C-alpha cells in the first residue's frame, strides 16, 4: 500500500534557512543541507525548500543549495519560489531538484504547466495553490436580500447548498487575488499535466488551528493527482485529520517540526497507531 507522506518544509532565503531550527544540536542551524540531511535521517518522506530570496541577484544561491543537498540527501526534494519560466525549472532540475513547485507563474501562463510536464514529465511538476475561503455568491445575494427584505428573514430557511463555501486562488505570496475558483483551477492544472497539487489554505496558514479540512477534502475528492495539504498544522491530530477527513495524500508542515514540538519519528508513530500507513 502506498504510504501517506510527511513532508517538512524549509523557507530558504539567500541560501539560509529562515525561521531557523530551534531544537537541534546542529553545527549550523541555518544550513538547509544539514537540516535536510537531519530530517532525512529522521524519516521524512520528502523535503520542500521554499526559496523566498528577495532579489534576482541572489537566485543562483538556491541552485548551489540544491546541488549540495542532492549530494547529501537521498530522498525527493521539491523546490518552489520565484520560478518564472521553463529555464528556471530546467536549472533547478539539473541542479538536483526532483520536483519544482510553480505558483504565480502557472496562473500568469498556464501553458507553462503543459510545456514543463511534457518536457520534464508530470511527476516533477507540482502546482502550488494558495487558496482563501470566500463567501459564495449565493450567500452574498441572500444576505443582501435579507437586509432589504428583513421582514422575510425570519421565514428564510437556508439550505446547506446556499452555504456551500468556495475558495479563491491568490498569487504573489498571497498578496494578489486572482478571481479564480480553487476547485476549478485545480481541475485545470491537472488537465494541463501537473503531477501533484500543493494546497495551502491561507486562512489556516500560521494559525496552528489545523488544516482547512473542507478545502482539502473538496480538492482531493475532485483531483485524480495527489494532493499535499499545507497550512495550519499545530499538532499531530491535525496531520491525522488532513490525511483522513481531508483525504490528503501527504501533509506538509513547518513549525511543528522546526521548533521541536514533534519529531518525524514521533509523528509517524502517532499516525501508525491510528491506522495510517506510513513508511517505517
Amino acid at each position, binding site marked *: 500500500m502506498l504510504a501517506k507522506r510527511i513532508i517538512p518544509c524549509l523557507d530558504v532565503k539567500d541560501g539560509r534557512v529562515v525561521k531557523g531550527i530551534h531544537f537541534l544540536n546542529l553545527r549550523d542551524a541555518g544550513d538547509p543541507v544539514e537540516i535536510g540531511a537531519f530530517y*532525512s535521517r529522521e524519516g521524512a518522506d520528502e523535503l520542500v525548500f521554499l526559496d523566498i530570496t528577495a532579489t534576482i541577484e541572489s537566485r543562483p544561491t538556491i541552485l548551489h543549495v540544491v546541488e549540495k543537498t542532492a549530494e547529501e540527501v537521498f530522498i525527493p526534494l521539491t523546490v518552489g519560489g520565484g520560478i518564472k519560466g521553463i529555464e528556471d525549472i530546467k536549472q533547478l*532540475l539539473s541542479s538536483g531538484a526532483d520536483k519544482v513547485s510553480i505558483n504565480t507563474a502557472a496562473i500568469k501562463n498556464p501553458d507553462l504547466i503543459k510545456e514543463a510536464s511534457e518536457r520534464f514529465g508530470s511527476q*516533477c511538476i507540482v502546482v502550488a495553490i494558495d487558496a482563501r475561503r470566500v463567501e459564495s455568491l449565493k450567500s452574498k445575494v441572500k444576505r443582501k436580500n435579507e437586509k432589504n427584505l428583513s421582514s422575510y428573514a425570519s421565514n428564510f430557511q437556508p439550505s446547506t447548498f446556499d452555504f456551500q463555501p468556495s475558495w479563491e486562488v491568490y498569487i504573489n505570496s498571497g498578496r494578489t487575488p486572482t478571481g479564480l475558483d480553487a476547485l476549478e483551477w485545480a481541475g485545470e492544472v491537472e488537465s494541463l499535466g501537473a503531477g501533484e497539487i500543493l494546497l495551502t489554505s491561507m486562512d489556516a496558514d500560521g494559525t496552528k488551528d489545523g488544516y482547512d479540512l473542507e478545502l482539502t477534502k473538496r480538492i482531493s475528492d475532485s483531483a485524480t493527482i495527489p494532493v499535499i495539504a499545507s497550512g495550519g498544522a499545530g499538532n499531530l491530530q491535525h496531520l491525522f485529520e488532513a490525511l483522513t477527513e481531508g483525504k490528503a495524500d501527504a501533509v506538509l508542515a513547518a513549525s511543528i517540526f522546526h521548533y521541536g514540538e514533534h519529531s518525524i519519528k514521533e509523528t509517524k508513530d502517532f499516525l501508525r497507531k491510528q491506522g495510517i500507513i506510513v513508511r517505517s
Partner: protein
Amino acid sequence: MIAVIDYGMGNLRSVSKALERVGGEVKITSSVEDIEKAEAIILPGVGAFYQAMENLKSRGIVVPLCQAIDSGKLFLGICLGLQLLFEESEEGNCKGLNVLPGKVKKFQIEDLKVPHMGWNGVRFKDSQLSLLEGIPEGSYFYFAHSYYVEPTDEEVILTMTEYGIPFTSAVRKDNIFGVQFHPEKSGEKGLRLLENFVRISKE
C-alpha cells in the same frame, strides 16, 4: 566504471551522486565507446516513453545498448529505464528496446490517483538475489510513475508492489536488472540496493 546513460531524460545527478556515495565510479555519458568500455550500465530516466526512444535513436545508442546487454554486461534500468526494456508501451503506442517480452501499461483503476507517487512497499518473489541483499522484505521505496511493466515471462519478476493492483516493481533476467522505483531517492534502502549493484559490478 559504471556508465550512467545521458539521453536528455531527466536529472542524472541524483543517480550518479548516490552511486558515488556507495563507492561507485561513475561516468555520465552517451558515447558508444563508454558503453562498450563500462563494467556496468545504468539507464535512468523520467518523462515520456516516446521521447526517450527518440532520444536514444538520435544519439545512435539503441544498437550499442542492446549489444552490451546481449553480451552479458551488467545492466540496471531505473523507472523509465526499466520500461524501455520491454516490447512496447501504451504511452504513445511506442516500441521499446524489446530486450524483455512484455508490455508497459497505464494505471487505469477507478479512484486511483495517477501518477503513483510516493513510498510503497515491495514484496520479494526471489529474496536470494544479490541486488536485494540486506534489504528486508516490505521495505519502502520511492515511486513516481503512471505506467507499469507487465512481463510476459513471470520468471523475470523480482518484486511486486500493490497499487490498486499488484504490479511488477523490479525485474531480473540474467545480467539485466530493472526497478520501477527510484533507488537514488529511496533513502538508506535505496542506497543499499545501489551498493549491491556496485558490488556485483566489481565481481
